[in-house]
């Protein structure tokens, strides 16, 4: 029973990282580094709560995805059209997200750091499996977004590896010049990759606000956008790899809550676990895995 609950809690913790990591896979495979994922999650959590507060959870999710996409659009304009440094643009996105949500939260809710309580989507019980005692915590009262996130893993994998769109996306990230000479619209593909990452991060932020906490709280993303980037690298730029890496991070967070209850280790050290784990994972894994060849390099036509 304890183990089942631990797994269920790991899964709940893993979902926001997973959704954002899937987004990171799309944008990186198109050759655009997106440090702004954290900011896109922040706007997702705020606009998700805002939408849900006024028009219900479904509208909240849609609004969150639109908000994430809007931030991604800014990032794409900066990095693809104007070809500026992708990391700098991402940092600006994060600052913009932080400032604009605080600003709007004050202007709309009259509170800088939280929104009123909002209700999430109706929970699902998975029919047959919920009869089994061991699996009970995993399959009862499941948020539909969790299921959506899990379904998105094979879908993303299929899209990236088996479709024409995916082939073009990857070719743009590996060798944009070659892709351009073959008649692929490099800029359009890069925009597609970045916008998809914005939509997914927005959804991930909305999950945090609507499904996980029931309200928007400032700083609720806690750097998960950056952790998702590490999960994407750990997962070797593949959706399935990102799933396992996210589960590892989710598991460490879920485990740390149990340790806090034990009270042996000061809780500030428990809070460090995901970040230390990220560092360790990157230290151990980076030299072995290689990302898309042209990732981070702006593509300029007529260069050379």
């Amino acid at each position, binding site marked *: 029973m304890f183990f089942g609950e631990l797994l269920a809690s790991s899964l709940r913790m893993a979902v926001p990282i997973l959704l954002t990591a899937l987004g990171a896979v799309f944008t990186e495979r198109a050759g655009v580094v997106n440090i702004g994922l954290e900011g896109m999650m922040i706007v997702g959590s705020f606009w998700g709560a805002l939408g849900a507060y006024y028009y219900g959870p479904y509208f909240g999710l849609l609004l969150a995805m639109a908000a994430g996409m809007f931030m991604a659009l800014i990032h794409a304009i900066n990095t693809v059209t104007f070809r500026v440094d992708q990391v700098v643009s991402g940092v600006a996105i994060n600052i913009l997200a932080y400032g604009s949500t605080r*600003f709007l939260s004050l202007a709309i809710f009259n509170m800088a750091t939280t929104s009123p309580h909002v209700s999430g989507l109706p929970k699902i019980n998975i029919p047959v499996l919920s009869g089994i005692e061991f699996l009970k915590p995993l399959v009862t009262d499941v948020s539909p977004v969790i299921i959506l996130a899990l379904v998105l893993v094979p879908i993303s994998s299929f899209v990236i590896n088996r479709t024409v769109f995916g082939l073009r996306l990857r070719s743009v990230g590996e060798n944009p010049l070659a892709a351009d000479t073959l008649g692929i619209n490099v800029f359009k593909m890069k925009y597609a990759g970045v916008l998809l990452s914005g939509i997914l991060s927005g959804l991930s932020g909305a999950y945090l606000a609507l499904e996980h906490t029931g309200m928007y709280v400032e700083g609720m993303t806690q750097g998960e956008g950056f952790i998702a980037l590490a999960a994407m690298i750990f997962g070797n730029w593949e959706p399935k790899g990102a799933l396992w890496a996210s589960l590892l991070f989710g598991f460490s967070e879920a485990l740390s809550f149990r340790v806090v209850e034990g009270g042996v280790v000061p809780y500030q050290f428990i*809070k460090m676990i995901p970040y230390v784990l990220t560092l360790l994972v*990157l230290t151990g894994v*980076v*030299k072995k895995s290689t990302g898309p060849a042209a990732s981070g390099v702006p593509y300029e036509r007529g260069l050379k």
Partner: protein
Amino acid sequence: MKKRYYIVLLRVLAPVLAIVLSALMSSIVILAIGKSPLQVFYTMFKFSLSRLDSVAIMLYNATPLIFSGLAVSIGFRMGLFNIGVEGQYLIGAFLAALAGFSIKGLPAVIHLPLVILCGALGGMMWSFIPIFLKVKRGVHEVISTIMLNYISYSLIHYLIADVFIDKSQKLIQGLGSILSRTPKLSPSAMMPKLHGFLGLFGLQLPRHVYLNWFFPLGILTAALVYYLLMYTPFGFELRAVGQNREAARTVGIEPERVYVIGFLLSGALAGLVGLSDLLSYFGYMDMDFPRNYGFDGIAVALIAQNHPLGIIFSAILFGFLKRGAEGIQTLMGVPREMVSILQALMIMSIVVIAKLMNDYIKRLEKKEEMMVCSSENSSPPA
């Protein structure tokens, strides 16, 4: 020759254009909450610049940003992105505070420099981890420094609330527990304010202004960094690595060595960021110690195009914005986060404009070259 001046003019014009552009874009946000942008900007100027104490507060606000802008710019100059200034200055400030409250009985001439040194050392220590991971294991410094920022928040919280909490505090009436803060620093560790010095020129600053000697020290540091970058062999190596790492390697510069020294230097400067607040305003460290100076430093460095002397001016600009933000919040009810939005828009505008201008300058130079070539070819043989 005339083109040279034109190019310099373009370089200076870029930040000005970026500031105007971002002010225009943020006007949309102001309009969206039903206020007049003109009135907001007018209030900002009037509130910040019309009184002497307000100007002094503006410079006090600028002081930490000079240091953090310099720290970030050294990273940029060698092609690395130090987002970790945030964590580095918290660790630096803590180490300085530790040296300030635990050592007693030293004269100020020894104690204060020692405390400042500890601040630099703390920042340096915290910057060693990411650069070590980068050089030895290939971990990208952006993600590692961000992770270290989060780790430093928790670490500082632990050190302040659990280990070094001031147990000698008197309980405040109506409050059940003591505040989470370190003991007070001894007076010999505190930085004197500028009041006495400015008094010599007939400028009387009121007591609620905390402008102190860190401001002139920041200007001096900027000048030193300028000298280091432009006139020393190491500065040359650092810039060479930033321009083209592999080309630098072929002329015998070891990029890894430059990365380590440069990043430690950046960390040492970052360690000084929090000291102006710590050693003049607070006098102890608690959970409310100012945050975000590290991120502000990124904007400061970019607006100054990583020029050490330009950083002084862009730090003052952001000091002005921070002061103005307080003005528009109290006088007009516009949330002060307005300035965060403005700051993000400024970063984007400056990088886009700088990029466009560099492309334009490159084209100009190419055209000039071609003209020189063609005039040489067409000149009749003597």
